[in-house]
């Protein structure tokens, strides 16, 4: 803070922090003068209206894009990608930080025996939250999987089994996925999925999942937009060939992300939210996309290309023909 500044100037300077640093450097001192010129003699603090106006102007400035259609399209596409990846990241965080443990073997056996009277053909336990099914190679939620011999005992009497759970205080609903016959029951952190030949005891989706998914999507949207706004500002002071190289790199990276975005929207978000539409129960694995190696490699290559483009925009030497900022607030 500079010595000799009035309290009003100090407060306005604080409010001007809402503007991005590069903007304060070039326009800060001038804006401070404009604000002080508009104040009344003897005024010690900004009015609520002017304070809100300064902060709002600063936020708008942070989100301001370079003029031109390309800038708007890039910002919209990046914001969309940010929303998708943010939602997936939010879901991942919610599952990893808030999901409860799987029931112990004894607890799981007790649940299974209360539903089906005869012994299962096999019992397999997968403690991971989400992982690969070793038999089918598909992603699935962790759980205790009981398989029953349909030939020996006939199909599981699903109605009867669910009735037993209902009597023990479980919330029971019919399984609505396209290929499922049976039902789903939930009690606390535990979910039971029943079909005619199997019973899966897994973790119930934590209550934080939809919230963190929405927060992640929101932060991703803002982050994507701000990234393009920042790249635009940086490129404004770069040479034409630097602009072309950075834009081409970022566009190629974004194209490489498209397959991942497509599958993520469908399988990780849409089916996860609207389970009724999913073709099978595996859609409960909300971030499986990155465990499929070919897709993962393409996605990481795309992200690397975008990061390189951003780094190039940050580090490329300035175009000397573009005038540097004149005078602003000292940092």
């Amino acid at each position, binding site marked *: 803070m500079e010595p000799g500044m009035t309290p009003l100037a100090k407060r306005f300077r604080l409010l001007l922090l809402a503007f991005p640093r590069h903007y304060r450097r070039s326009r800060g001192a001038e804006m401070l*003068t404009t604000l002080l*010129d508009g104040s009344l003699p003897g005024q010690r603090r900004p009015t609520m209206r002017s304070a809100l106006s300064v902060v709002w102007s600063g936020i708008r400035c942070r989100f301001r894009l370079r*003029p031109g259609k390309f800038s708007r399209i890039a910002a919209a596409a990046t914001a969309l990608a940010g929303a998708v990846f943010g939602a997936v990241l939010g879901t991942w965080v919610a599952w990893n930080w808030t999901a409860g443990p799987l029931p112990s073997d004894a607890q799981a056996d007790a649940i299974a025996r209360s539903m089906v009277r005869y012994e299962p053909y096999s019992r397999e336990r997968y403690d991971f939250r989400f992982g690969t099914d070793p038999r089918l190679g598909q992603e699935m939620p962790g759980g205790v999987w009981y398989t029953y011999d349909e030939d020996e005992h006939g199909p599981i009497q699903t109605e009867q089994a669910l009735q037993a759970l209902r009597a023990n205080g479980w919330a029971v609903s019919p399984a609505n996925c396209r290929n499922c016959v049976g039902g789903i029951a939930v009690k606390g952190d535990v979910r039971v999925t029943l079909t005619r030949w199997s019973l899966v005891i897994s973790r119930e989706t934590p209550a934080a999942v939809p919230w963190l998914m929405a927060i992640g999507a929101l932060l991703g949207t803002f982050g994507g937009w701000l990234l393009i706004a920042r790249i635009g500002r940086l490129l404004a002071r770069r040479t034409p060939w630097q602009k072309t190289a950075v834009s081409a790199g970022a566009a190629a990276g974004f194209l490489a992300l498209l397959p991942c975005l497509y599958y993520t929207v469908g399988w990780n978000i849409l089916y996860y939210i609207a389970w009724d539409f999913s073709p099978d129960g595996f859609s409960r694995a909300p971030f499986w996309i990155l465990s499929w190696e070919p897709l993962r490699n393409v996605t990481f290559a795309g992200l690397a290309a975008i990061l390189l483009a951003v780094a190039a925009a940050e580090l490329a030497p300035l175009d000397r023909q573009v005038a540097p900022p004149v005078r602003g607030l000292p940092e």
Partner: protein
Amino acid sequence: MMMREPTFLILSALAGKPLHGYGLIEEVHVLSSGRLKLSLGTLYGSLDRLVEEGLVRVNREEVVSGRLRRYYEINDQGAAALAAELSRMRHAADLAESRLRARKAGEAAWNPA
């Protein structure tokens, strides 16, 4: 392309003489008959765009009592853009006026009494 009102008023204000930030806010307030008071964001957002489009340039900088005042002035390209916008507005006003006259004439023909 049609000019936004704040841009039009800022160019009009600068057509008279070079002005600094607060001078521009006051002049736009007067030109809009007290209707428009530019916020800091709108003022500097418009100035950024006008400078970048080459319609306005920095005239001079003054430091008075430790405060930096940057004066802006309209250049030839800006004056031409303002004249083109005025011509467009005048044309639109003439068209609207002729429609109003035709409407009044039509009403008179239908109601000769």
